[in-house]
């Protein structure tokens, strides 16, 4: 049990250390709604298969002879929507960051199978977008109080199997890559839905009291109030209505 707890807390600790250990570079936005909106839009954008999967299928020749039908997500490769919804915000962010990190690694592996420079350029753009998404996760984690404390378990992430087994032949490898990317887009769709729920809860809390709502949300996220230095930053957010994107 203790080992399980350690197993669960270790990634969080690592992630927290990772966040804290990042060099002081460009500052994150201190506007929670704005940042939430950015994350939501990014997820909405990245869920579209035309941003990555379609490119891969086309580049690998999987768009012929009904091969596309075989490109289905392998179950368990990415956390399900339900699993994500059950996670606390901090763990969710952590899981999201870890998963996207695994995706980047896998994309680097898939990159070797994409011959066209144009497609490579697009893939490079996708990777940059994922890195940007991870940047926003980092910033959101900065806004959330008690970022270093969590007891929640981290769901299984694709990091467990970042790359297909080397024994697979090329076709199987391509098909596996296709399935992975399929799971990636589905995962991003689920992430977008989670962030949308975050946005709804923010709207509800605003209607009651901007300050209290945010605090309640923070409590519901089972975060301690130790990191009080972030509170004023969050409290500044309601002052700006313009950034709240509608559903």
């Amino acid at each position, binding site marked *: 049990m203790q080992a399980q707890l350690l197993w669960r807390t270790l990634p969080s600790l690592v992630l927290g250390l990772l966040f804290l250990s*990042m060099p002081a*570079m*460009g*500052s*994150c*936005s201190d506007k929670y709604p704005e940042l939430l*909106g*950015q*994350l939501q*839009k*990014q997820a909405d*954008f990245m869920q*579209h298969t035309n941003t990555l999967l379609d490119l891969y299928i086309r580049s690998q020749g999987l768009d012929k002879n009904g091969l596309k039908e075989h490109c289905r997500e392998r179950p368990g490769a990415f956390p399900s929507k339900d699993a994500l919804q059950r996670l606390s915000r901090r763990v969710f962010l952590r899981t999201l960051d870890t998963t996207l990190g695994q995706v980047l690694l896998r994309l680097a592996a898939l990159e070797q199978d994409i011959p066209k420079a144009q497609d490579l350029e697009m893939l490079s*753009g996708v990777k*940059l*977008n994922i*890195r*940007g*998404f*991870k*940047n*926003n996760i*980092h*910033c959101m984690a*900065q806004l959330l109080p008690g970022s270093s404390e969590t007891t929640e378990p981290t769901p299984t992430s694709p990091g467990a199997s970042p790359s297909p087994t080397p024994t697979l032949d090329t076709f199987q490898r391509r098909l596996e890559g296709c399935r992975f990317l399929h799971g990636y887009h589905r995962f991003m769709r689920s992430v977008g839905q989670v962030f949308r729920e975050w946005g709804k809860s923010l709207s509800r809390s605003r209607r009651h009291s901007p300050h209290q709502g945010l605090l309640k949300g923070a409590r519901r996220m089972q975060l301690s109030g130790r990191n009080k230095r972030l509170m004023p930053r969050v409290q500044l957010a309601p002052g700006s209505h*313009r950034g709240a994107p509608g559903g």
Partner: protein
Amino acid sequence: MLTLKIWIVQALFIFFTTESVGELLDPCGYIKPESPIVQLGSNFTAVCVLKEKCMDYFHVNANYIFWKTNHVTIPKEQYTIINKTASSVTFTDISLLNIQLTCNIRTFGQIDQNVYGIRIISGLPPEKPTNLSCIVNEGKKMMCQWDPGRETYLETNFTLKSEWATEKFADCKTKRDTPTSCTVDYSPVYFVNIEVWVEAENALGKVTSDHINFDPVDKVKPSPPHNLSVSNSEELSSILKLTWINSSIQGFIGLKYNIQYRTRDASTWSQIPPEDTASTRYSFTVQDLKPFTEYVFRIRCMKEDGKGFWSDWSEEASGITYEDRPSKAPSFWYKIEPSHTHGYRSVQLIWKTLPPFEANGKILDYEVTLTRWKSRLQNYTVNDTKWTVNITNDRYIATLTARNLVGKSNAAVLTIPAYDFQATRPVTDLKAFPKDNMLWVEWTAPNESVNKYILEWCVLSDKAPCIQDWQQEDGTVHRTYLRGNLAESKCYLITVTPVYADGPGSTESIKAYLKQAPPSKGPTVRTKKVGKNEAVLEWDQLPVDVQNGFIRNYTIFYRTIIGNETAVNVDSSHTEYTLSSLTSDTLYMVRMAAYTDEGGKDGPEFTFTTPKFAQGEIEAIVVPVCLAFLLTTLLGVLFCFNKRDLIKKHIWPNVPDPSKSHIAQWSPHTPPRHNFNSKDQMYSDGNFTDVSVVEIEAANDKKPFPEDLKSLDLFKKEKISTEGHSSGIGGSSCMSSSRPSISSSDENESAQNTSGTVQYSTVVHSGYRHQVPSVQVFSRSESTQPLLDSEERPEDLQLVDNIDSSVGNLPRQQYFKQNCSQHETSPDISHFERSKQVSSVNEEDFVRLKQQISDISQPYGSGQMKMFQEISVADAFGPRTEGQVERFETVGMEAAIDEGMPKSYLPQTVRRGGYMPQ
């Protein structure tokens, strides 16, 4: 072995060469700092350090150092001797950008030697870049730009830096040609805030701009919507539907739009209210458009929250709204034309095509109805805009409608009055004026209700007929502009006709110009009358084609050749002007300019000369002078007439009448044959025998006597003979005047005074009854009249002998010469006429003379007659004797006496048998 030697030699050569060159290139010292870059306005110190070896060689130290900048020695006040080998120089407030500084020493007391030199570069550190902004053109990479600040005079590098919270991007270094902007190498990542700033760096420092943090999606300039299309609706003629395709950015962001539209021929755009297009959409329906009108549209977009930049405008797309029924009735008017059919009139109905915004579609045709008073209506369909019909002299009502695909317009109604209709009620205060490049017409409406106004206009020209254009205005309008293609500098005759319910009213007219200009030609001035001190100028009005405006006034410029020009303004209504105070007998140059509101134009120059005298001035002088002369002459004549006796006494004393001389009385048998009036009395006691008296009345020009001819002969003879023949007793006046004075002046004068009447007294010695006296005796007359030359020189009388035979051929030239002698007192013409008269008269007289001679001779018997004949023959063929001449003369004188000349004393010759002593 040989190879080794060669190698050694070469090595030694190289060694020594290198050593010597090194010695030559090795400077005596150096300057610190080596390559200084200093800030403008700051202080700078340079130190020159001499090498010991050099100091020893040249026997110098730091005291011998002197500095130069740009070859100019720096004052020693700026030097500082640091030690034996080092000397420094300090500059304060450096202002030059580039300074060449050299360290020099003076060797051997007189030779300046350069030790070392450096170049000081001056400049400024970079200023903090400001106004940093970035833009993300859709589909392209992010570009940022900034203001670099002041000029640094140094090479300054600008670096655009960017980073996320978790990642740093590669620096963007500016290019040399675009030092104030930079485009990053990476694609923008939307929805991730990025921090951007600029670093400016040069040799004097580095400075960083303010950091800006933004989401690149808020800096997006989207691509404009494309495939814009326009479609209309048959149901609604006032709408057009736009559709378009948004740019791909709309997958990330919401968009708002600007939609602008205009009619095809308009230049300004109208815009759809922004609030109607504030969200992402793909189509929009524009309402409240005009039917059957072509509209042009364009669209642009930007991020709907207003962050970022507007896209460029899309390509324009156009569409035409659907047709609607004509919204207005056409303008409708008529013209009456003379008709050859009695009782009918030819009426031309005219109308204007509806403008597109009133036609609301394509006009297919027009429907005209014509209704005579209380009669049936007649319909006509016309495709043209005019229709001519013969109607009776009754009153008619005409209507006109325009028809398009959708429907008909309202009807325009026009009343054509009866033939004998008298138009009244005109508009008043009609004015026309140009404004904003249009010709406006304004009037005051009549008191009664007016249905509409008809404005007609045409160009007035001397060369072309007045072709009228027209337009219609509503009855409520009292000011409008002429909607025709009007030209500048043309005179328009504008008429306004109010149209009442019962027909047209009276017409009012006015002339106007859209824009005036100076006349094309100036007026041609000429003189109507020129006086001594004034001239009446006249000119013609300029033709309307060259006026180019209303002639406001004329200016007459006139001058003499040397005088200043004088200008006189004349009202434009005049065509005549009198220039006064002119100088007589002077050439004047005059020209004339006509002026409109926009300027004038000179006409051709005209010259005239004023006369020296005014009209009648000469007459006023000459007439009185002539009158005075005549008066004087008259008085003189009267005086002479009154004093004629006295004058005669002094100038022309009476010559005693030989017939009354004592000789005559001395011969008691000689009866007085003639009554010589006063002479008879004067010389009643005179006694002469054989005295013949010749008295020539020279004054009587009209009736010359043979004595004249005799004197002519004498004159001729005188001419022939040598000069110096003067009797001293008498002579002709002619001779006296032409001869070079042998006779004394008194004699000449006397001769001249007696030129009018000359009396001759000749005592002819004659024998009694054909007895020739042995001695010729002269009896002196009491007369003081000198005798003729012929009397003194009988040989001269030979010429007279020929009279009988050559009377008809009397040399006229000689006679003229005699007259010529009178030239001094008479005009030539009168001489000539007179000579002719005399000549003709003489011929007649000689004929008569011959007759008289024959008459006289008959009583004396045929013997005498025979004698005359013999004389004539003798004259013609033989030498003449004195006696013969004397006889001839006597006969001639007697003949003349018979003619009864009262004032002439013809020579009386006492002949043998002819003088009968009593």
